């Protein structure tokens, strides 16, 4: 019994250490970034698009908009694909096919993002440049690559959500004379909706936070985008691009960018928690 208590303590300490490191990271980001927001003024920081940190301009509006647009684009591509894939795998495919396909899809999540980025530069960017125009490195390229990258997250969480719907529901619906598709659409999907929304929100979190692949295919221009073929810079790319040489106010500016990113991701995660809890 004493041993049990001891192990409990150790586990508690370990759990505490992971939480406290998270807290430390948060505090550190805010300590490093907040002075800059104070220095530049919250309004100049969030409502201006003029980013020239070595000349004293710290506006990140274009980057916030770009981050949101890239994420939205990734959702438009990734959600229908991922959701239909999950529905087929969970409801319509024979067990054996599912046994092969699901691990394959999960393998997709293990591919490093730099590989996605590289594929994007070599294959997708020239396609966009040749057939749609513009420099190729663009909002569209980033959205497509991210749309593919979030598929595993969306598919596997959605499959679990669909699998959690009791078979009683399906049997009842089929017994009432509904076809299999009607059963999925009217009964299974609504019953699994909170799980599916969680999948979408977690996919969105992944898309907002992705950096490497986006730097490689998005072009990183500072301008406010006016078309999907324009090169854009997201919040994450801004930090990763400039961190190497940044010092003083410039470095603080990058941490302040991190604060904005942190807040956006917090909002996404909180809404995911709220949605699942409502179930």
């Amino acid at each position, binding site marked *: 019994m004493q041993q049990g208590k001891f192990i409990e303590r150790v586990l508690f300490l370990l759990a505490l250490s992971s939480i406290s490191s998270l807290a430390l990271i948060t505090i550190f980001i805010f300590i490093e970034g907040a002075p800059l927001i104070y220095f530049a003024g919250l309004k100049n920081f969030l409502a201006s698009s003029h*980013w020239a*940190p*070595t000349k004293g301009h710290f506006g990140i509006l274009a980057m916030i908009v770009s981050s949101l647009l890239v994420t939205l684009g990734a959702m438009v591509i990734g959600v229908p694909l991922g959701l239909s894939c999950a529905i087929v795998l969970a409801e319509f495919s024979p067990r054996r096919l599912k046994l092969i396909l699901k691990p394959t899809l999960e393998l997709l999540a293990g591919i490093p993002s730099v590989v996605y980025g590289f594929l994007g530069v070599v294959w997708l960017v020239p396609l966009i*440049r040749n057939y749609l125009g513009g*420099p190729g490195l663009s909002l569209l390229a980033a959205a497509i690559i991210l749309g593919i990258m979030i598929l595993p997250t969306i598919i596997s969480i959605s499959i679990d959500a669909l699998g959690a719907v009791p078979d009683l529901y399906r049997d009842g619906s089929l017994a009432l004379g509904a076809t299999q598709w009607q059963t999925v659409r009217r009964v299974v999907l609504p019953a699994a909706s909170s799980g599916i929304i969680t999948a979408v929100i977690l996919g969105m979190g992944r898309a907002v936070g992705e950096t490497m692949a986006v730097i490689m295919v998005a072009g990183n*221009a*500072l301008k406010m985008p006016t078309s999907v073929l324009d090169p854009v810079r997201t919040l994450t790319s801004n930090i990763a*691009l400039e961190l*190497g040489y940044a010092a003083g106010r410039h470095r603080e500016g990058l941490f302040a960018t991190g604060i904005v990113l942190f807040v956006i991701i917090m909002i996404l995660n909180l809404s995911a928690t709220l949605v699942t809890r409502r179930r």
Partner: protein
Amino acid sequence: MVVCLLGLLILAGGLGCKSGSGGSAAHAVCIAGSTSVQPFAEKLSEIFMHQHPEIRVDVQGGGSSAGIQAATQGAANLGASSRELLGPEKQLIEIPIAYDGIAVIVHPSNPLTDLSVEQIRQIFVGELTNWRELGLPPREIDAINREEGSGTREAFEHLVMGQAEVSPAAMVQDSNGSVREIVAGDPNSIGYISAGLVDDRVKAVTIEGILPTPENIKNHTYKLRRRFLLVSREAVAGSCKAFVDFILSPQGQQILEKEGLVGIK
């Protein structure tokens, strides 16, 4: 016993003085400054420290101005600068170690062969946005810039842009290599990289008729050229001098040329 120890101490002290120039920091050389010089200085210091294990060379970044300031105040033994000294900074002793040319590159299929500094400025400011305006087939110009804080960008702004800011519509890549990669793939693009890194997948244009060859960079005819300097408050001595001598030796210069710079000698 005590006498023995004392003797040892004195002996050690004596040895220390013999190999250094006196003072406790004789064995450590601290270089701070330009982020353009930093990778080369690191490479040199690595090889130098291998040959002289008793000397430690610390290389730090921070930018040319910070490096010059550190050297002025004595915070660093040597300041590294990729720009010329201005005004009161000229009191410092400057040791040129290499030249670096900045090549303006386009896709090999681009018929463009020559640009003036003014035309490059107009392209990067965003006044020229179509190749048509330069008498070429009508295509949008995709200008590629470097990230804020990069030494190459700092030099480009100094040599070409003057007071003007690069257009926010320009794309940004975070290394010479990725600028080259994008230009090699995009027929409408234009970018700038260190002259030593131009290869046959991209085409370096002539600037007012002059190609960025090592000879043209060395004899000052190529305009987009900068010197890499080490600066110090007083005449270099001891370990510091050993390191500077190593950089200026045929071996040091050869290392720099292998890394894409043009030697000063």
